[in-house]
């Protein structure tokens, strides 16, 4: 190996120099490439590549017009996109507001329910108290009667003993007379006492009656209040129902829109309109479909253009069979009207 080196030093030097040169040039080329690639990418991102072509003035005008139209189209679609974005934002804001209002409604309802519950509890408490007071009055009355009877008996017994003593002490006649008189008195007293007791009882009854009337009145008022609350509740429930209906309706609208869009997309994808169509050509078609989306009948109502155009419309609907179904089958439509427009608008 060394010998081989020694024998041809010049050749080896030359080889080394050549390799260095190659590496250097590769490096430079790579840098240049990188630079040119960078400049190219920056230029392509800023403006379209211009291809020089020798074309006639008309062609140039056409090209310019086309570019202008494309630009206008772009502007138009940009504006449309902005408008759509704004609309979407507005819709989002409206939706948010609606949700917030819904939330407020829900909170208000909860609060009202809580209040009502509290009121009901208070009412129940009051009723309980009234019942308790009636009970206490009854008990007090019974005690009073008992005590009055006891007192009367005791008095009678004492009087009877005194009369006995008198009779023993005085003459038998006197005693007897006196005794008779005393008995009479005792009788009178007993009657008086009985009357007193009856009066007390009567008064008690009147009192009881008043208490009962008061309780009844209170109960009646409570009932009226409850009824009012119930009515309020019912109204609130109805409102809630309406809210839910509205929600369901908006959901239905959304499902229906998605349903229509799915059908539109499928049918449009199957429409091959023949060359020679005119922009003002339209075709109204009425179809009926089975529950699985199979197109059963296609009826061409009004149709411009030639037989080929009409055939293309019929083929489009038939080839789109089975049609997409709605996510909620209660919104399924067994009859659909299509309006085909040759123009792209």
């Amino acid at each position, binding site marked *: 190996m060394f010998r081989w080196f020694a024998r041809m030093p010049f050749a080896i030097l030359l080889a080394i120099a050549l390799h260095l040169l190659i590496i250097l040039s590769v490096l430079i080329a790579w840098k240049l490439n990188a630079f040119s690639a960078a400049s190219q990418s920056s230029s392509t991102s800023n403006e379209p590549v211009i291809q020089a072509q020798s074309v*006639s*003035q*008309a*062609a140039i005008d056409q090209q310019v017009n086309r570019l202008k139209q494309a630009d206008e189209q772009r502007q138009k679609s940009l504006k449309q996109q902005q408008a759509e974005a704004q609309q979407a934002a507005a819709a989002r804001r409206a939706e948010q507001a609606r949700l917030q*209002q819904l939330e407020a*409604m829900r909170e*208000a309802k909860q609060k009202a329910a809580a209040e009502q519950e509290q009121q009901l509890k208070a009412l129940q408490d009051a009723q309980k108290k009234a019942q308790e007071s009636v009970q206490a009055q009854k008990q007090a009355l019974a005690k009073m009667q008992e005590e009055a009877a006891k007192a009367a008996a005791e008095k009678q017994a004492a009087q009877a003993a005194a009369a006995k003593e008198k009779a023993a002490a005085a003459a038998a006649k006197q005693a007897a007379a006196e005794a008779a008189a005393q008995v009479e008195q005792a009788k009178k007293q007993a009657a008086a006492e009985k009357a007193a007791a009856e009066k007390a009882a009567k008064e008690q009854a009147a009192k009881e009656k008043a208490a009962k009337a008061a309780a009844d009145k209170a109960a009646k008022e409570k009932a009226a209040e409850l009824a009012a609350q119930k009515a309020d509740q019912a109204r*609130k429930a109805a*409102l809630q129902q*309406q*809210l839910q*209906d*509205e929600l369901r*309706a*908006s959901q*239905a*609208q959304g499902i*229906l829109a998605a*349903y*229509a869009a799915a*059908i*539109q997309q499928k*049918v*449009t994808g199957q*429409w*091959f*309109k*023949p*060359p*020679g*169509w005119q922009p003002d050509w339209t075709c109204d078609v009425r179809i009926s479909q089975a529950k699985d989306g199979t197109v059963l009948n296609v009826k061409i109502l009004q149709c411009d253009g*030639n*037989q*080929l155009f009409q*055939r*293309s419309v019929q*083929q*489009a609907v*038939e*080839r789109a069979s089975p049609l997409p179904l709605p996510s909620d089958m209660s*919104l399924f*439509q067994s*009859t*659909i*009207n*299509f*309006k*085909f*427009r*040759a*123009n*792209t*608008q």
Partner: protein
Amino acid sequence: MKARIQRWGLWILSGLLFLVPAVSQAELNIVISGGQESGVPIAIVPFSTTTNTNFSSIIDADLARSGQFAPITADQMPSQPSAPEQVQFDQWRTGKAQYLVVGKVEQQGGNYQATFYLLNVTNGQQMTGRVISAPVSAARSIAHRIADIIFKQITGVRGAFDTKIAYVTETDGPGKKRRYTLEVADSDGANPQTVLSSNFPLMSPTWSPDGSKLAYVSFEGRRSGIWVQDLRTGQRYQLTKFPGINGAPSWSPKGNKIALTLSKYHSPNIYVVDLDTRNLTQITNDGSINTEASWLPDNQTLVFTSDRSGSPQLFEKTIGSSSAQRLTFGLSYAAGGAISPDGKTLALLAGGNGGFRVAVQSLSGGGSDLRYISNGGSEERPSFAPNGTMLIYASQVGGSSVLKVSPVSGGESQTLRFARGKVRDPAWGPFQGDQ
């Protein structure tokens, strides 16, 4: 709180009033706009045959040339049935084809017998089924007739594939002598037959409406003359040999007259020759150039080119009337008029910055609906197919001249292939037989 609820209630109520009708609608209305422009997707399954003729490819090419069909290629077909009972429609429905043609061709002695069916892939129905028989030598004609039947079934318009075209060729013969021929070929350019061969220029063939004769300009004897030739017998006679120009003959729809251009030492004017009486009627008479007459279906009115208003423009004049009406506006050059068989459409050669291109406009539209049909820029006078759906014209390509066919409805033109040199002055022949 209560007031708020009431407000809410109102809002919801009004919302419901607005929403409910939309939801409770009994029918859904959907707008389909645009779609994609395409010829009718059709599958011509290769016919089951032991013959050498590729029938399905001839049918394919015919339908594609019309611009109204987009035949799918054999490799896109899920299977190759040759009879309706072999067709599994579910298999085909996943593909593009809306219509399907299956068939077979058998040889019976000196004849080919073709049996074919046109099927609607989408609904699985058979639209037609036919048996066509023809001599082996007319094999291509069988395919053209099948294409015509398919075309009629689907478009409602009579097909014009089983028709002929006449044209002139120019080749360099021995000793640098130019050689001219008058040829008749199938509508797709196949089966060319030389009708006349000459060392002198031949020009402007025109078909008799029954397709049995051609009239044309010949310069034999170094003077222009109009000649009429019977295609079956080859017999020919000279119709006009006036001094000066004898040119641009046009056979009338009823077949009893020929309009032509004569100069008679003056400027060229339009005349009409009665073929029975040989009476000559002068139609135009002014100091300008009047030429290239063609007939409206009424057999009475002529459309022609005139430079009476400065540049060449197209005019219309009824025989016997005193004045001509201008038909073209907005073009610096309008010539080579041809009238569609229904008399509604005017095809012409429009000159301008884009060169000379074939265009169409409605006959009485004043050019407001002018559409360009070709885009080459060096086209020549067009001729309508007898069903008005296609135009044939010569186009200069790289120092040579070829024939092209364009759909009138717009779309790609197709170049017809010929073995010999320059091909020009095509004239599309009438329908053959009844259909």
